[in-house]
């Protein structure tokens, strides 16, 4: 009997170790000395125009990040390396809504947004094409709420976040086009953005 209980406890402990999560809050608004690691080639939803985006989202708002992100790292045991390796990292931050374009929200409301990146061992490891969520930065968000939590995400990653004209955002040295909020202009949906500027008074 004792042997069985010991075996069960051992298995449960091993399972807990296999998928370990670390949560931390980091203030990393200084990106000068950080190495960018864009990893994890993904398949994701894509939104080829504004109509497709509008159909999918719960909210479209202009908002400003109010704090520093809190991040969660995920590790699991990998037989090839014989140790736990990082396989995913997410960050959440809060925005305060300044303008509502679509959805049931009010100016001044706050909500949490998640993006798939974080600072790990001094590197900015990102699974997302969007630049980090810096305190004070202002963006136009097309947001979908996760079905199992109250956290929102940018629809289609870089398909769902756009610059607010004349916004004065923090510098982002890791990006070739920081004003667009992506690392690489190829990931910016210019056609959709032009449709937005034509349709909405931002």
């Amino acid at each position: 009997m004792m042997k069985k209980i010991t075996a069960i406890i051992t298995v449960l402990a091993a399972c807990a170790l296999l998928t370990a999560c670390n949560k931390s809050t980091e203030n990393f608004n200084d990106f000068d000395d950080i190495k960018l690691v864009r990893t994890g080639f993904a398949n994701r939803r894509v939104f080829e125009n504004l109509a497709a985006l509008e159909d999918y989202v719960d909210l479209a708002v202009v908002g400003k990040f109010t704090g520093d992100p809190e991040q969660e790292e995920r590790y699991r045991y990998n037989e090839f390396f014989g140790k736990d390796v990082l396989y995913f990292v997410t960050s959440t931050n809060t925005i305060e809504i300044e303008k509502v374009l679509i959805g049931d929200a009010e100016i001044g409301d706050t909500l949490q947004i998640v993006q798939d990146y974080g600072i790990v061992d001094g590197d900015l490891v990102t699974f997302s094409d969007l630049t980090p969520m810096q305190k004070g930065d202002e963006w136009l968000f097309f947001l979908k709420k996760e079905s199992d939590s109250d956290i929102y995400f940018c629809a289609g990653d870089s398909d769902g976040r756009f610059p607010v004209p004349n916004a004065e955002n923090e510098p982002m040295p890791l990006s070739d086009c920081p004003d667009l909020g992506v690392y690489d202009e190829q990931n910016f949906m210019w056609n959709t953005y032009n449709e937005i500027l034509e349709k909405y008074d931002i």
Partner: protein
Amino acid sequence: MKIKKRVIPMLAGVLTAVMLTSTASAHPEDYWAGKYIGYEDAKFTLRISRSAQTDFLTSDIYRSARDWNGISSNVRVNVSFVINARTTIDDGINVYGDNLGERLLGYTTPYDSNGKPLDTSIDGLISDWAYADITMNTNSSVFSVASDPKLAAQMTFVHEVGHVLKLTHPFISRGLGGHTIDGKPVAIMNQGFPGDYGGAVSSTITGHDKSCLKAKWGA
């Protein structure tokens, strides 16, 4: 009359050559350089872990990875399902499942020899990878909005295996017509659900995907 007889076959030949070029030309931007450290080919077993096996992500979805076989003599993909935690396979590429919310359908991570994720935008483009693994989203609601959720999951898995085979998301075609829609190659390696971008996101491996695989690993 004689001229016509000669011109017609010549024109037909030229047209055939153009069509063959346009349907089978690989774009060098559409696959990574480098191989796997210690290997010259891409012959491996996908080791489907228990975490990736769900009521929705069933064995037939994973077996579709074999569609990459028979294109290049240097590529062979086998699929093996982990029955218990002790199962190990040499040269196995692990396939995991995790709840990724509704942001991603699945993704592939390449690693360096220290087990650190590689920067696919720079290092990953040119360097040999030590290892790669696949994570499939076990949150089935992310697939449920597709017109055919099972097909979307299957396409995602074959797409991710394409990344393990060092194929990238296709860049916009530069002057190579014929197999593009609005300049975008028709490919399973495009991001999205099957049928997106007017059909450029394919649910099956296309001529473009095959030509890239052959250009990468040889015929």
